[in-house]
């Protein structure tokens, strides 16, 4: 896939508007692309991603589906295998349980099982994260399930810029790509060029340079990590924050190079800590940079419980800058 980083212009968009612009760009560029999902057409998605697209591209390309997640993903798999480029919407990532078979056993494996004779250019947009009291079944971050499945790619944009660029990359990719969005970020603003640009899948970005400590993170936790880095700075620790952007493939190089410079690292994600991607990343860091490490690789993630409803409880559940700082201070002894 061609990479086409353009100069950012001084135009600001929200995360949700960037998603909208990305999907519009894809539908414009790719005559075989279409969007299908629950309430994506008439309502433009409950998150507003697709507002105006039904009007612009018509009901043949922006399609409301029944509440049938397995059917929807199956439709995407079958359409992709026969020449279209579906954008499939799974409203909340929590609903993946309803279509995990189509994801795991069909989408991820068809190409391999068929000896390379098929390919599936599917983009799946879905929503993760807690923070607005949607309780245990509408707040999860289950990316670890997807990253464990050979055949899938997984990206998790933290900014409007990356949301747009990664969605466009995903839909130009000839493999299934999950774009896992974040609900607390929908209103966040950032620079977004007007043209159709890509953010390459599999490339992390250093969003804050630093020499003493590396935080590896992704999605909304990038911003909490940057905040934490500012706080740590006042304690004399200069933290490098690596935004992975893609979890599968994982940009191990950028992470390892950073840790080799800083000698201490922490992985931060919103998902439940136990069994989350932090384990994989921490394991890789110590495998590949063992001799450079002056301290264990720490991990910050959600505690081992479902997401509670009550706002204060929920706040005490979700990782944030304070918790990152606290954990870092213990780790770094500052």
């Amino acid at each position: 896939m061609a990479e086409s980083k353009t100069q950012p212009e001084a135009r600001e968009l929200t995360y949700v508007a960037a998603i909208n612009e990305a999907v519009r760009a894809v539908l414009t560029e790719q005559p075989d692309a279409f969007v299908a999902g629950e309430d994506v057409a008439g309502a433009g998605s409950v998150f507003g991603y697709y507002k105006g697209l039904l009007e612009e591209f018509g009901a043949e390309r922006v399609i409301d589906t029944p509440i049938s997640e397995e059917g929807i993903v199956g439709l995407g798999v079958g359409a992709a295998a026969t020449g279209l480029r579906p954008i499939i919407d799974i409203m909340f990532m929590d609903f993946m349980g309803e279509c995990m078979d189509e994801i795991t056993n069909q989408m991820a494996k068809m190409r391999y099982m068929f000896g390379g004779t098929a390919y599936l250019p599917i983009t799946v947009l879905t929503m993760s994260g807690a923070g607005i009291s949607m309780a245990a079944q509408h707040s999860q971050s289950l990316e670890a399930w997807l990253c464990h499945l050979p055949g899938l790619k997984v990206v998790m944009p933290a900014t409007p810029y990356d949301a747009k660029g990664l969605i466009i990359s995903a839909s130009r990719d000839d493999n299934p790509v999950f774009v896992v969005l974040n609900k607390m970020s929908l209103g966040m603003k950032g620079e977004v060029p007007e043209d159709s640009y890509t953010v390459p899948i599999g490339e992390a970005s250093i969003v804050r340079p630093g020499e003493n400590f590396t935080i590896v993170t992704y999605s909304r936790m990038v911003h909490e990590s940057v905040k934490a880095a500012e706080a740590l700075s006042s304690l004399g620790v200069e933290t490098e924050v690596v935004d992975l952007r893609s979890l599968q493939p994982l940009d191990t190089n950028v992470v390892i190079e950073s840790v080799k410079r800083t000698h201490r690292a922490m992985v931060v994600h919103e998902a439940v800590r136990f069994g989350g991607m932090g384990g994989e990343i921490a394991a890789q860091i110590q495998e590949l940079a063992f001799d450079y490490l002056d301290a264990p690789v720490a991990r910050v993630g959600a505690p081992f419980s479902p997401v509670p409803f009550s706002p204060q409880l929920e706040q005490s559940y979700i990782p944030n800058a304070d918790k990152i700082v606290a954990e870092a201070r213990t780790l770094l002894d500052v």
Partner: protein
Amino acid sequence: MQPSDDVLRDIHRRMVRIRIFEQEAGKLMEAGKIPGALHLYVGEEAVAAGVMVHLSDADQITSTHRGHGHLIAKGGEFHKMFAEIFGRVDGYCKGKGGSMHISDMQIGMLGANGIVGAGPPIAVGAAFTNKFKKSGNVAVSFFGDGASNEGSVHEAANMAALYKLPIVFICENNGYGEYTPQAHHQAIVDVADRARGYGMPGVVVDGMDAVAVYEAAGEAIKRARAGEGPTLLECKTYRFFDHVGVRGMGLSYRSDDELAKWQQRDPITLFEATLIEQNIVSAEEAKVVHDKVEAEVQAGIEFAEASPMPDPAALLDDVYK
């Protein structure tokens, strides 16, 4: 199955309880007092009330994301409900569940559910228990027209018919799944048409008519208790508020005309008029019911507001037994 006057009064009371609770909840939500999502049951009261009046605390129900009406009709208590949807420690779920997971295991209300279509398989399990224990209890599963397209509902219906379980499936067909009209989510008009494909009776009833619901549900529940297997009962109804909250996302997916037409068939107005006409309750008595419920709702709100938020130290409680 003609309802007695007492039963009619009971249904009325249950409907009013739902209506006033939901209206107040809607206001509180708009006032920013309720976190998260709130799916209100206003307009559909005849369904919950007409069904639930047949059930004892030992009978079980599974509910949906739109679960308050079911819980209230099943005997749920306002103060614990408000406390829960406010996220307080005295709520039904100690503030951990909220509106979408409100539940009362004591009275067989196996939970509102944030997953569309998740209830029916669980209700099949409850019905299985009833059969296994020969308890004579029945399980009732509520689900929407939108939910009817989930595979889970299909699997549950088939299993229920296969095992002749004591269960009733109630499809609350309010014409929409979120913002998608029925005609855009299925090519059929009557969800009850699916019953035959499982080997169970399918019945359509006017869900705005509490007596009609009462009678049809009574038949189905009797059948279930008698060991004759499940029924799919479809109640045609309408929600007067938006999908979420009162005004929702402000989308124009349904017309004012359509809403007005259905509001003319307000299940409570209709039912109350009949009751008064038939001298089963006087206008006065009806007003007393409303006033009492109103007071109880206000007391519930006060209780809930006084209830503390859960202690963060309780975060990891109740993950395991």
